[in-house]
């Protein structure tokens, strides 16, 4: 009996990741991909700016961006782009190269692209941008959005 329990526990542990397999996920694209996608087939863009330490951002990624209706809506109508505001990566976008002058990732040291996008606004996370087909700002929210609010935002 005891072994049965242990055995089933182990089995669950091993196969647990498979439970999430096949579940549809948001098809996040990079800024570089976005550039070429917009040239070929323009769509509205959803931009999600987050940081490592922002628990609201993590909660959105884990619980809101995984909802089936949200996933299908975003994947069919939008290009979805994620930007870590403290990223140290070099990003090519809109005929420019965005590259931080530093190597190490650090809290409060923001990527130039994040600074550009949030220019004149408070540096708070998550920040969600909705751009139209011509990449003009259509809507902006700088707070946690639950699935209902995100749906309204994408309406």
């Amino acid at each position, binding site marked *: 009996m005891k072994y049965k329990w242990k055995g089933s526990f182990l089995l669950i*542990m091993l196969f*647990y*990741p498979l439970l999430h397999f096949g579940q549809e996920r948001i098809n996040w694209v990079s800024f570089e991909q976005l550039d070429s996608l917009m040239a070929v087939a323009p769509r509205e863009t959803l931009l999600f700016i987050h*940081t490592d*330490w*922002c*628990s*609201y*951002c*993590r*909660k959105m990624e*884990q*619980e*809101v961006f995984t*909802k089936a209706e949200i996933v299908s809506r975003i994947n069919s109508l939008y290009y979805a782009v994620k930007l870590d505001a403290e990223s140290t990566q070099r990003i090519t976008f809109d005929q420019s190269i965005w590259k931080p002058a*530093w*190597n*190490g*990732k*650090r*809290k*409060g040291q923001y990527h130039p692209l994040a600074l550009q996008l949030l220019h004149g*606004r*408070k*540096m*708070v*996370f*998550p920040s969600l941008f909705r751009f*139209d087909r011509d990449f*003009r*700002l*259509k*809507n*902006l*929210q*700088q*707070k*946690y959005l*639950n*699935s*209902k609010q995100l749906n309204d935002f994408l309406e």
Partner: protein
Amino acid sequence: MLKQYTLLASLLAGTSTIYAQTPLEGHLFNRSREPIPSGTVTIKNSKSVTSSDTAGHFKFNAITGAKITLNISAVGYRSLTKVIAMDTIKSPVQIQLEEDNLNLDEVVVSATRYGVKRKDAPVVVNVIGPKLFNATQSVAMSETLNYQPGVRVENNCQNCGFSQVRLNGLEGPYSQILINSRAVFSALNSVYGLDQIPTSMIDRIEVVRSGGSALFGANAIAGTINIITKDPVENDWQVKSTNSLIDGKSWDNTVDFNTSLVAEDLKTGATFYGMHRNRQSYDANGDGFSEITKLRNTTFGTKVFYKPSDLDKITVDFSTVNEFRRGGDQLDKVPHLTQITEQLQTSSVVGGITYDHYSEDYKHKLSAYGSVQKTVRDSYYGGLGGGSTLADSTLASNAYGKTDDIALVAGSQYTYNFERDVFTAGVEFSYNDTQDEIAGYNRTIDQRSKGLGSYAQYEWKPFATLKTLIGARYDYTYVDGKYSLAGINRNSDQRFGTFSPRLTILYDISKDLQFRGGYARGFRAPQAFNEDMHVTSIGGNQVFVLIGENLKTEYSNAYTGSFSYNKNFGNVQTSMLVEGFYTDLNNQFVNVMASEKDGLIIQEMQNGEGARVYGSNIEINVAPSSWLTFQAGGTVQRSRYKREQLIYEGKTESQDIWTKKYVRTPNIYGYMNSNLKATKRLAVDLTGVYTGKMIVPHIQDDIMTLKDARDFVELNLRLGYTLPIHKHFSIEIFGGVQNMFNAFQKDFDKGPLRDSDYIYGPTRPRTYTFGLRVGHFH
């Protein structure tokens, strides 16, 4: 009927078909008269839609009706509805749209729904977070506080492990301990409370040195220690087991857990935490008497919130603590058959409720809260004390005591956010009733204290570089205490109001350099504080604190000034803080110990003739890269009575002890803390505490001497390895050694006649620790 008239009217109009087939043209432009392209114009209740061209021009070819309603919308502009009467209109229509800034400012003030990098506050706030709890392998809060400048935790009793926090060298009662910014720590609670708070319930501890804000209580002269419990966002859980072996002899095992659940819409959520700790007693010198107390503690708590709307939040919290501690000798015997026993069985329940409300525009915030705490304690402070007479054993069997303590806090706070400034005001009522009785010593404490405090504070930012915090509080205090001990009776009956102004400024001298300065006034009413609830033993006799006659209220003025410098040198991020503090105390309370009389030693609380505590705190943070951080800090200070102060009354006058220096207060102390994240999975932490030389009173055969205690360097090492099993499941294995060079007091007294208060320096000898943590954590 109406239809017929309309028909008739149009027939009469004959060929003139102005209403039916008019074209409508117009222009969309913004405030600076620039054309708005791609604007959408719709005619209400019809299917006609058009959009503006690059010149902002739009056109409907045919319009029916005398009056139409246009809906105009454009990206980046506020939608507009316009009613147009077709007969009076001049075509083309000129329509101006207002730019929409998306109401960002409002959103940002809603405070609870986004993560912001911690802003610079006018008062220096030091934060101790979960990283440091881990790095120092702490299970209780008392073990982490040392790692901040100006903060020192000391153990004051070998028998019961009574510990206290000293801020800037001032004793425990000079600082205020808050839980979620509320003063729920009662006089009794703060005796052992520091050991009772598990780190698993704490999100962070904010230490503010010097009472800089009017929001803090009037007794927060040295500062406040604000314990912020976890306010969950994500769904997390973890279970941790920590096992320590003190000096290879005594085990200290702890299991703790915490878990949080929050709904996806953030409307409801809960956290649960719990801890069970079992520590064996430790005897450093093999005399059969404990130096570290035996401890068994079970804590459980929860915090639940519900948001009826986006603007309202109700939070309920609840926790229980059950603790058994015992020190002395022959710990498995009945207390009254031993030489010395201090045994405490404490059971305490805390409950609270908070209601927060925001106005629609998030500018007004109103909070109302209430907290109650009830503690029952069975105590034993006594023993045969080396004697074997009938009187000794009668006294020993009557040394059992009982304490009841109720503390209540209720208040409300209002905040208004101006464009740049913030106004805060509030009232708070507190009540504390303490009953303590030990029949054998004819000792009773019957104390009721009530306080009504009101405060107002204005955060004024006249320039971008200057921020000031101007505030004041008025406290009305009522203390009614009756204290008796071995036939001596004392009273404290006080009603008085005190006004305490507070001022703090923050000035940005340059981008990297900031100046902060502050002034605070505070007071302490004559009443029993934590150490008075604790009885110790010296030379086989019990030591009691008794409130003196005609005690006056103690007042203090505290001044601080500091410079902080933040700069990045390439990849190296540095910050440095240099702070000076000066506290002037008047009528300060001093416990004057008298020599033994009828088997009792009395420490009488008296007013001193003033004292000065001053010095400076230094803090340095260096982060050469994201995987290596280094922090160090220290304090250099002087604590002096203005006149020679009597602290011990000997049998003869020549044995009296006078001092100008504060005892048990080192002039230099500090800490360091370095964290190395070697790989994503392996973390190495090296932490250390330095305790400087100090004078410590020691009593032997009724004679007090002031001994020079040596200095100590306590170093701790911890290694942690995390195995990420799955995205939502990790296992961490950790191990380390605390106080690796075994810097520990060597000259403890031996036997039943020891001075139990003669204890100083690090709180534990070399200790090996290992453990396991599983769960979903970050």
